[in-house]
């Protein structure tokens, strides 16, 4: 199985991006957990030592994945999915609570976070379901089932509580869109997001004014022959304004202060310097500190192990969710842009790979992998550099942690394995 052929067929470019990201990630973890006392990099009591162990174990698991039959994953995807759901349910009974979230199993040497393998299993299960000859994504019933596959693990994860991880599952809807789910679903969601943000930032009146301007422009720019569907447009406008009003209502009456603070931090709603200072010291502390640390790296960075804010432990969780801060401070814009480019190239490469699959299952799973990696990367870095509200999810291949290292590695390499098999499947 492990012949010469697999070396030729596997996509070395993706592996190169993967290894580069893992290496930069580990160096960053080393730097942010570095203490002055002399220690070996293999010291497994330190976090960077443990991470090195996780990386090693992940590399071994890659060999294992490569050794398996490609069809194994398709065939057993339902089994994986069921096991995942059971493991998520089991958390309610046997889960271990760390930092307020019951998201782990204590395996003695290692805390397993079942939501990570659940991502892999759900991506497999979704691909399997959609690629079934019986399934037609244009059918409402099949759309519903597909949504359920995504929704069930998410619903099980929300009460841990871990809303960030739950959010990740919804990224899998990209697979559905790729496979033919009407795009206006996405359009509506996007429009809702825009109205939401505009309402909070400028208020309902401005939403109405913007809407009016857009409609007038539409009217002026339309072709003479085109007849405006007056009633639907008015209905649409009323719906938008009602939605905007309800956003306002929910924000002011349903949300609690801590939620409001997150949004006001994100959208820079607060102008009172005293209150801003308070937000910076409480809920916005992480974001403020990480932004400042990244800022202080400037173009060239302060150099390896020279990040003063990293050293001073100014940014909490810097080895896990805020690991990107270390890159920003120590390697500057050069470092951060390299990481962004690596992620972008990796993802684009995966899209290319997915599109060249002849097997529907492989393509759909590929899209699942891309969606999951993309949403992690988008939310995590967005949060760290202050363009998104604080949602705690790890940065793939970077953040400290065994479960997510295994999870992301498995996602990527199962897909690469499927890719090596693409010609065979096609016959």
């Amino acid at each position: 199985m492990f012949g010469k052929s697999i070396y030729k067929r596997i996509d070395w470019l993706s592996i190169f991006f993967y290894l580069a990201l893992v290496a930069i990630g580990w160096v960053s973890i080393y730097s942010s957990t570095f203490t002055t006392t002399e220690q070996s990099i293999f010291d497994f009591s330190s976090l960077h030592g443990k991470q090195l162990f996780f990386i090693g174990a992940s590399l071994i698991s890659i060999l294992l994945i490569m050794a398996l039959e490609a069809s194994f994953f398709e065939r057993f995807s339902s089994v994986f999915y069921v096991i995942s759901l059971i493991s998520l349910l089991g958390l309610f009974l046997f889960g271990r609570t760390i930092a307020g979230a019951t998201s782990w199993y204590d395996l003695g040497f290692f805390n397993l976070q079942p939501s990570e393998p659940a991502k892999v299993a759900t991506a497999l299960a979704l691909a399997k379901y959609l690629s079934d000859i019986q399934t037609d994504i244009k059918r409402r019933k099949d759309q519903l089932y597909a949504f359920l596959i995504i929704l069930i693990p998410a619903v099980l994860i929300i009460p841990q509580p871990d809303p960030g991880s739950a959010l990740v599952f919804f990224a899998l809807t990209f697979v559905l869109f790729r496979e033919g789910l009407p795009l206006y679903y996405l359009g509506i969601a996007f429009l809702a997001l825009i109205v939401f943000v505009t309402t909070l930032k400028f208020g309902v009146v401005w939403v109405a004014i913007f809407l009016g301007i857009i409609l007038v422009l539409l009217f002026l720019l339309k072709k003479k022959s085109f007849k405006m569907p007056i009633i639907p447009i008015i209905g649409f406008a009323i719906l938008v304004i009602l939605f905007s009003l309800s956003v306002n209502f929910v924000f002011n009456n349903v949300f609690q202060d801590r939620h409001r603070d997150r949004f006001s931090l994100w959208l820079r709603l607060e102008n009172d310097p005293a209150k801003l200072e308070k937000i910076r010291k409480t809920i916005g502390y992480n974001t403020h500190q990480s932004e400042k640390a990244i800022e202080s790296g400037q173009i060239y960075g302060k150099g390896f192990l020279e990040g003063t804010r990293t050293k001073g432990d100014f940014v909490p969780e810097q080895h896990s969710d805020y690991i990107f801060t270390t890159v920003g401070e120590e390697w500057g814009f050069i470092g951060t842009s390299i990481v962004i480019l690596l992620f972008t190239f990796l993802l684009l490469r995966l899209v290319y790979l997915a599109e060249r699959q002849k097997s529907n299952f492989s393509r759909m799973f590929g899209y699942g992998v891309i969606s999951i990696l993309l949403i992690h990367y988008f939310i995590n870095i967005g949060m760290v550099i202050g363009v998104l509200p604080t949602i705690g999810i790890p940065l793939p291949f970077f953040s400290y942690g065994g479960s997510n290292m295994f999870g992301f590695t498995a996602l990527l390499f199962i897909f690469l394995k499927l890719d090596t098999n693409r010609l065979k499947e096609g016959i």
Partner: protein
Amino acid sequence: MKKLLLSSIIIIIGITFLGRLSYLQIFNFSPDLLDDPSIKLVYDYPERGYIYDRNGKLLVANDPAYDVMVIPREVRSLDTLEFCKLLNIDKEKFNKELNRARVYSPRLPSVVVPQLSKEDYARLQEKMRHYPGFFIQKRSLRYYDTKSAANVLGYISEVNERDMAKNPHYIQGELTGRIGVEKVYDHILRGRKGKKHIQKDRFNRDIGPYKDGILDSLPEQGKEIHITIDKLLQEYGERLMHGKRGGIVAIEPSTGEILSMISGPTYEPSLLVGRERSRNYSKLHYDSISKPLFDRSISFEKAPGSPFKTLNALVALQEGVISPSTTVGCSNGFYIGRSKKGCHCGGGKRNMNSGIYKSCNAYFVSVYRKIYEAFPSSSEGHQAWAKHMKSFGLGQYLGSDLHTGRKGRIPTKAMYDKWYPNNSWTATTLYSNAIGQGEVAATPLQLANMTAAIANRGHFYTPHVLKKVNGKDIENPKFTEPRYTTINKEHFEPVIQGMADVYKKGTAQYIQIPDIEIAGKTGTVENFMKIDSVKTQLTDNSVFVAFAPVDNPKIAIAVYIENGYYGGRYAGHIASLMIEKYLKGKITRKDMEQRMLTRTLEREYAKPYSGEEFKINEYDWSQDAIEPKPETSSK
């Protein structure tokens, strides 16, 4: 289209992130050094400026003090008991302070024991190296070369959060003036603190100045100031005030410079310095009966009494309703409607001269009525009268450079319209104003200023205490340009003649000072207090205003003594002695001096609180002896 969707999203996200990162890391970098934990800002405090009196005698200087500081996380096990013994505090307090420091910050220095004396410091210094985590920080405290003038000088204390919010110049632990000259001229005295930026390595060790010190600045020394107070006169006045309550203000008429400003009872300025500061402050603050922190010289507004008659005389002359020779008959009193009001002048025919020197109530009530009657209505008359009074600085803030004070009162038409609706008030209704007893009120500072205006024959300079900054005379036009009253110059002579006769043959004839011609006016002000909600009359307040010499006035003074009985008694004595002290530098009337130094009014002040019936205006003061306050020897 669908195939491109995800790719375009990936690219858009990548571009957004790169844009944001370039904004953060390339375009937005603001070198807010303090925000960077690797750069430490250290302040270098300048010495606060000294304060001298008008003759260059030192009043306030600085004394080094030593704070014991701690950085909690650097503290190693220590022999607490021995250390406490060295520091001279008990173990419990020490542990409490240490704990507080730890809660504040384990990494930053906090004060454990503030302001050690030089002796304690010397003892501690050589043992300090046994106590890692502790160190001594030198600071500068105020040193007072006088036991007087606390109300003028004020004191300094650490800034609080409100000060810091108001003035971003201040940082935690800095000192600022609280009242008096220290507060008003804080910006001159404090200088400018120097800054040093120190680069730290990642082990938090200093590795030298940041960017070779191009951002650093040197401290700028506080400027020294001379104030207009005469140290010797101030000290003498406080000795005379010993055992009495009230205020004295002396002004140099030709400049408006305040020569002394005494409030009794007072306190030693050094009480509000050093380790005992807050305990002492509480003690002073909670003395709600004698109120030593209340500056009576500028905040005590009361009916001025008879000195106010001089102004009524001037207004009447200015309005042309009388001439100096106009006579009024006094029948040991006068009639308001059908009720007779008393007069102590002895009765007979009074003109302006005798009206002033005998302080005839009947004469001035008549004059006052004539002022009002010269106008078509009493409200117009009142407004004209009030305008003249205000031109003497009464009923308004004088605009001096003192931090506090009251504005006194010249009653307004509106106030009387409210009290006596339907225009039912006339000069007769308000006759008490004629003799300074009605609704008018003034502070000792205002009385002194009014006297200075009379001494100058019609103008005054805004009273102030700042004389020189760094040896250079002030040039503030606010204090160097005269303010004219609405009374013409020629009307002052007859009034001043009357005031001079107060000493020659009038109510102050027994407190004459040899070789000095003084013009003055006594005041005996009726005085009421609510005791258990019953309006009760207390012993009269003793008031005196004077200036001397008559022809070339060097000093104008107002003395207001609570419950001092008639004007010539306490207030008159004190005013005469102060004038002699200032003009001659020594006292020839030892008998008068002895009388004032050894008399107290404590018995008088205790009366309303005794809960018993009491007599007022007792002529016999032989029981009121007190040990005189020793003369302070200045360096």
